């Protein structure tokens, strides 16, 4: 008892000493947002957090999620945790949570009524493990977009397609005009992501869920998925002259009219904006490839490692609240080109494509994304398969589907 009193007294003096506006606590936040638009967006988060009297120490890790995640994870498991860190919400940090290395945010969430404000509900579900909330979703990024260059189609003398099938039909005309019909960069995640988009668009949402959620290997080997592989075969033939690696280089081919289109997530929109292009006039966006208008609720979230320092723990709570603040949500997502996670904010400044996305979201036509459904291990195997499929014409559609089904059978 006496000991407790003593501690309380000490804590009180400590609190007195540090009271006042100078109580700024430094909180290091790691993330992999380093491209122009991304850096501008993250600056909004830092600004909002600094306004609370704390200090955002930026820990940007260049490369991509693939490069950054191993660094973040080894810092957390190695006993040098940062104040907060970005992950894609879903299963990337699952094991860190299970090992008790991450902070339980349930109290903050209950106080802020997160379950009521965050939509769609699946976002918070993927932050929840064993009934406890471990992360703050900050945005929704959907992969389901086909970006088309109006200029390229004009040059080829064909109308801008309204869906994937018209696009495939227009490919020969584009090729004749010296335009690469479909730009797919060489990095493995791009070809794998393009296939997932085709699966949800050509196969439909049910097929997508049957394969990735139920992990139904028999269905994955069946005729419906065969149709998707046929579409993927079209895609790889249309993409065979793309000689670039990075996604933004591929997007740039669409911006400059060297390529007809690209299947890429809504983050590509930032590139069009930076290049000063207008949606509808210079480029066209087709959500769900124009076939099945759904969007997937992938995206980014912040996780908070368990810290011993009480001041920092307090600052973590402040940051968690700041991230979901309506003003921060609007400022951040406008710059990022993603959709906000709360439905009660006003996005008048959004462009045409973002508005299309918001309308689909309001209708509730959403599916969970592979980050939420599959382990990183399965994702990597899938990437290996589709990187090979897109780069190697000798790999037949039948063989690829057989390997895909085997992969789904062993997926977790």
């Amino acid at each position, binding site marked *: 008892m006496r000991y407790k009193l003593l501690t309380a007294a000490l804590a009180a003096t400590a609190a007195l000493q540090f009271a006042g506006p100078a109580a700024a606590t430094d909180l290091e936040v790691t993330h992999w947002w380093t491209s122009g638009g991304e850096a501008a967006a993250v600056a909004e988060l830092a600004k909002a957090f600094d306004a609370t009297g704390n200090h955002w120490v930026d820990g940007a890790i260049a490369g991509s999620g693939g490069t950054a995640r191993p660094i973040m994870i080894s810092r957390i498991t190695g006993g040098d945790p940062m104040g907060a860190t970005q992950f894609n919400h879903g299963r990337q940090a699952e094991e860190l949570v299970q090992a008790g290395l991450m902070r339980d945010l349930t109290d903050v969430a209950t106080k802020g009524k997160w379950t009521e404000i965050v939509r769609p509900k699946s976002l918070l579900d993927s932050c929840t493990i064993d009934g406890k909330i471990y992360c703050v979703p900050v945005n929704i990024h959907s992969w389901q977009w086909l970006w088309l260059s109006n200029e390229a189609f004009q040059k080829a003398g064909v109308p801008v397609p309204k869906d994937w099938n018209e696009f495939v039909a227009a490919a020969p005309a584009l090729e004749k005009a010296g335009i690469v019909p479909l730009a797919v960069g060489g990095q493995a995640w791009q070809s794998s992501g393009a296939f997932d988009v085709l699966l949800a668009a050509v196969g439909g949402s049910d097929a997508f869920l049957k394969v990735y959620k139920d992990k139904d290997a028999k269905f994955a080997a069946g005729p419906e998925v065969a149709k998707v592989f046929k579409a993927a075969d079209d895609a790889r033939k249309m993409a065979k002259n793309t*000689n670039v*690696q990075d996604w933004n280089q591929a997007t740039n081919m669409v911006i400059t009219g060297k390529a007809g289109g690209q299947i890429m997530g809504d983050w590509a929109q930032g590139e069009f904006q930076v290049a000063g292009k207008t949606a509808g006039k210079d480029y066209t966006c087709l959500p769900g490839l124009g076939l099945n208008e759904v969007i997937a609720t992938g995206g980014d979230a912040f996780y908070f490692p368990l810290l011993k320092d009480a001041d920092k723990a307090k600052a973590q709570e402040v940051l968690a609240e700041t991230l979901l603040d309506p003003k921060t949500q609007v400022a951040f997502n406008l710059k990022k080109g993603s959709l906000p996670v709360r439905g009660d904010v006003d996005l008048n400044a959004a462009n045409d494509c973002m508005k299309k996305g918001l309308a689909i979201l309001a209708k509730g036509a959403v599916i969970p994304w592979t980050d939420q459904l599959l382990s990183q291990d399965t994702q990597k195997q899938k990437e290996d398969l589709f990187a*090979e499929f897109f780069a190697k014409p000798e790999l037949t559609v039948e063989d690829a589907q057989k390997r895909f089904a085997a992969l789904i059978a062993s997926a977790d």
Partner: protein
Amino acid sequence: MHTQGRDRTALTQPADEMSKSERPNPLFRNLNAKVASIPMILTAGVVFVGGTLWTVLYSFTNSKLLPRLNFVGLDQYYRLWVTPRWLISIENLLIYGAISLVFSLVIGFLLAALLDQKIRFEDTFRTIFLYPFALSFIVTGLVWQWLLNPDFGIQHVVRGLGWESFSFDPLYNSSIVIYGISIAALWQGTGLIMCLMLAGLRGIDEDIWKAARVDGIPMWKTYLFIIIPMMRPVFITTLVIIASGIVKVYDLVVAQTSGGPGIASEVPAKYVYDYMFFAQNLGQGFAASTMMLLSVVIVIVPWAYLEFGRRK
């Protein structure tokens, strides 16, 4: 400060007493040397042997992001050997290994033999040939990525000179990409091999050359049947250096192609890294690294047996 000083003398005293003791205990002979080697023994024992055993043990578990002792038998190995990417990696390693081994030995020895003809400006040539070795594999990889890029590199230059149909883009062609990577590795590595060979050649007694000349043996025969067999230790050193470079090749591939196009230029070390850190599957990565170790052991053990076992 004072306490520290006292501690130190207290620690060293017993050791001094022991070394002064008159009994010849073999354990304490050369005590200084033995004490000095303790850190290395610990490093070798704990880090190398301990780490290896730990890795092998955990390769039989289903560890994902964090190591867990949940044994699953040979599952990881079974999965490894049906994975197309691993099989491609092994095939690439064999091709790359054969090319590096043969060509760096042959080119390295030829260059050394040519430099050994008492030519002028030997130092200059030696420096030029050895220079690429000063570059890291990452830099080498980037340089050759540009040289072999069809839009900027060799193909572009030759086409600019008028040969419009000239085509040379090994890094963008799945079936020959591993040869493109080998070119860069040879450019980087042969200089060192040349220097080792040159040192070996200089170690050969002049009298042997004189004797061979007196006997009228042609120069190439002298090299092939007298000098090379005499250079056996140098060749073994070189072989070990080249072989270890082959098994661990990773950064060169990352810098040149990052495994592409598709997965056509993947190598085992990259598989290990990708599955341990990107795929968050430690068990699979450990299984792959154990297979790499096993392949080295399979080569080293019979050779060591022949080399060292015979003499006894």
